[in-house]
C-alpha cells in the first residue's frame, strides 16, 4: 500500500468538503480521481500532501501518518498544486534549481528522472516562467515536483485549462514516470482522461461514488444505456426523446444522445415509438457506458443532479410548446 485513506472527514466551517473518504493506492499505480470542481479533490490531495489535517479518519503515505509524521511525508511526496506553483519572475532554470535546493538536492543528481519531461522545455531554460505557454508551464511544474525523486507524485488537476494536444502529451509523460516505479495520484475534471489510469475514483460533493478499473466501469449496477443518432437537429430531438414514456435520462453526448430507460421492459415500446417518427437517419444502439456515463449515472442515482437547482430536466419551463418535425 502506498497511500491509505481511511474514513477521512474534512469540513471548512459548515461546509463538508470530504465525507468518509476511503481509498487505497498500490505502489507504482497510476490512480485517477475524477470529479468536477468542488468535489473535494483538492482537499483530499492537500491532506495527502500533509498540508491539511483531516478532522477524523486516518491518512498514511508509505506507512507515515500525514499528521504525526508530516516531515517524512513531505520528503517522499512530490506535490503539484492546482495552480502551477512557479515563480513567474524566475526563469525555467532558476525555478528548477530553486526547488532542487529546497529539497536539498541538485538538478544534476536527478536529471535522468526528469529528462523525459524537461527536454520539452530545456530549449527555453533562460525564459521567464511567465512567458511560457500553458503546456510548457505544466511541464515545468511537473519537473519541479519530480526534482527530488519522490516516491509518490500528487498532481492536482494538472491538465485543467490545457488544450487537448498538450493534455495528451502530458499523460504520455505520466506513463513514462510510472515506469520509474513512482506512484502517481492525479485528479482531473476531464472524464476522458480516466481511461489512461490504472484505477479511478469518481468523486462528487465530497464523496467517493465509485472506485474502479476504467475497463470495469459500468459492469456494476447500471441499467443498459443506448446511443441514439439522427441527422436532424439535435436539441429538439433530445427534448422529444425526453418526453417519451419510460425515458429515465437523455443527454447530449458528442454527436449522439445517450439514453437510459426507467426499466428494461420499456425498450420495445420505446423502439416502436421512435420508429414511427419516420426518420431514416435515426439509429438506436445499445452501448457499453463510458466513464462519463457512469459518472452521470452515479450522480443521478445519488439524487444529486435531481435536487440541484437549475437542473433542466423534464420539469423545466423552457419551450414546452416545441413540436418535433
Amino acid at each position, binding site marked *: 500500500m502506498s497511500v491509505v485513506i481511511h474514513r477521512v472527514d474534512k469540513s*471548512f466551517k459548515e461546509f463538508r468538503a470530504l465525507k468518509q473518504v476511503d481509498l487505497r493506492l498500490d505502489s507504482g499505480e497510476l490512480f485517477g480521481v475524477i470529479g468536477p470542481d468542488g468535489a473535494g479533490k483538492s482537499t483530499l490531495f*492537500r491532506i495527502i*500532501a*500533509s*498540508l*491539511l*489535517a483531516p478532522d477524523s479518519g486516518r491518512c498514511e503515505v508509505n506507512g507515515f501518518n500525514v499528521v504525526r509524521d*508530516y*516531515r517524512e511525508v*513531505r*520528503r517522499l*511526496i512530490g*506535490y503539484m*498544486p*492546482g*495552480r*502551477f*506553483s*512557479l*515563480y*513567474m*519572475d*524566475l526563469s525555467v532554470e*532558476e525555478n528548477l*534549481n*530553486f*526547488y532542487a*535546493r*529546497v*529539497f*536539498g538536492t541538485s538538478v544534476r543528481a536527478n536529471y535522468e528522472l526528469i529528462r523525459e519531461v524537461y527536454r520539452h522545455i530545456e530549449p527555453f531554460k533562460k525564459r521567464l516562467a511567465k512567458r511560457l505557454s500553458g503546456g510548457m508551464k505544466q511541464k515545468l511544474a511537473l519537473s*519541479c515536483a519530480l526534482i527530488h525523486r519522490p516516491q509518490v507524485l500528487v498532481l492536482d488537476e494538472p491538465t485543467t485549462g490545457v488544450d487537448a494536444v498538450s493534455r495528451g502529451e502530458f499523460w504520455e509523460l505520466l506513463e513514462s514516470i510510472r515506469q520509474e516505479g513512482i506512484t502517481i495520484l492525479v485528479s482531473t475534471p476531464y472524464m476522458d482522461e480516466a481511461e489512461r489510469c490504472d484505477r479511478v475514483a469518481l468523486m462528487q460533493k465530497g464523496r467517493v461514488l465509485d472506485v474502479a478499473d476504467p475497463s470495469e466501469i459500468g459492469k456494476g449496477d447500471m441499467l443498459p444505456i443506448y446511443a441514439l443518432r439522427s441527422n436532424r437537429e439535435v436539441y429538439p430531438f433530445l427534448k422529444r426523446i425526453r418526453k417519451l414514456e419510460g425515458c429515465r435520462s437523455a443527454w447530449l453526448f458528442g454527436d449522439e444522445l445517450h439514453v437510459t430507460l426507467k426499466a428494461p421492459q420499456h425498450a420495445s415500446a420505446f423502439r416502436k415509438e421512435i420508429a414511427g417518427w419516420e426518420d431514416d437517419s435515426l439509429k438506436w444502439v445499445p452501448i457499453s457506458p463510458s466513464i462519463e456515463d457512469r459518472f452521470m449515472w452515479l450522480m443521478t442515482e445519488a439524487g444529486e443532479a435531481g435536487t440541484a437547482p437549475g437542473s433542466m430536466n423534464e420539469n423545466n419551463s423552457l419551450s414546452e410548446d416545441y413540436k418535433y418535425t
Partner: protein
Amino acid sequence: MKRFFGLVSKEFQHIFRDVRTLVILFGLPVVMIVLFGYVVTNEIRDVKIVVWDRSGDQLSREAVSKILSSGYFILAGYLDREEEIESLFRSGEAKVAVIFEHDFEKNLVREKKAAIRLVTDASDANSAQLALNYLQGVLTGFFMSLDQDVSLPWAVDIKTRMFYNEEMRGVYMFVPGLMALILMLISSLMTSVTITREKEFGTMELLLASPLKPVEIILGKVTPYVLLSLVNAATIILLGYLVFRVPVMGSIWILMLECLLYITLALSLGVLISTHASTQQIAMVFSMVGLLLPTILLSGFIFPIDNMPKILQWFSSIMPARWFIVIVKNVMLKGTGMAFIWKETLILLGMTVFFILAALKRFNIRLE
C-alpha cells in the same frame, strides 16, 4: 544551510527583478528626505508679528524698530492685553507676539536684567521655530550692540513659548521621524507583501509541502529585507548629514544596532500581518492603515504626544516608532549613550520578542 541560502538568493532575485520593489526600496527614502527638506524650508519672509509693549520706553521701541527693519517681520499691530494673542493667532492675523515686561529699560539698567517673551503660533512647528530663531538672533544682535553703552554685566532674558505645540521641535526632528517611518514601511510592508504574494500565487503551498521548516521559510524571506533595510537606514543618515547637516553626535554603531532592532521588530510585524492576510492587497492595506498611519500620527513624529488626549497617549506608547524616535534623537542629536536609552531599547526588545512569538505561533505548518 544550503536550503536557506537557496531561499535567500531566490528572494534577492525577486527583489532585483521587480522595478516597483526597487523603486520603493531605494527611491522612496531619497524622495521622502528631499521632499521633507523642501517642505521644511529654511527661509522665512514677512512673518506677521504683534507687539505688547508694557514698558513703552525708549529701549523697547528701539528693539521693535530693529525687528521690523530686519526685513523678515512685518508689524500687524500693537496689543494691550495678553488674551488678544490667541484670537489673533487663530484668525491668522499674527504668527508671533513680542512682549516686553514692565519697566523694561529701567530693569535692564538698574538690575542688569530684563525680560522679553516671545510667543508663537506653532501649529506649523517648523516655521514657528524658524521665526523664533530669527527673532532671537535679531534681538541678541541688538542688545549686543548696546553693550558699549550699558555698563556690564547685563542680561536680557528672552523667554519663548510655542502655542499649540509646546514641545520644542527642531528642524532636525524630521530625520529621526522619517527614519522610523521609512524603516517601518520597507520592513513590514515589503515582507508582508512578499509572503502573501507566495500565498496568492500558490507557491507557498509548495514550500509548505517541502521539508522546509516554517522558521526556515520565514527567515529565508526576511533576511534579504534585513540587509536592505540596514542599507536604507545608512542612506537616510548619510542623506540627513549631507543635505541637511543633521549630525550623528553619538556612536554610529549604537545607532545602527538600534536600527537593526527596530528593523527586526518591523519585519516580525510584517510576518504577523502576512499570516492574517490572504492577498497582497489585504497585506498592503493592513500595513498602511494598521502600521503606517499610526506611526505617522501617534509616534510624536508630527503631532506632539503631550498634546494628545490621554487615550491616544496610551496608544502612542504601544507604537514602536515612538520609542525608536526617542532613541534616535538621543543618539543622533544629543550624543547620549546606552545609559539614557536602555529603557526604550528594552521596550523595543520586548515588543520584538512578542511579535516574533506571535508570528511563529500563527505561521502554521499546514494551510489552515
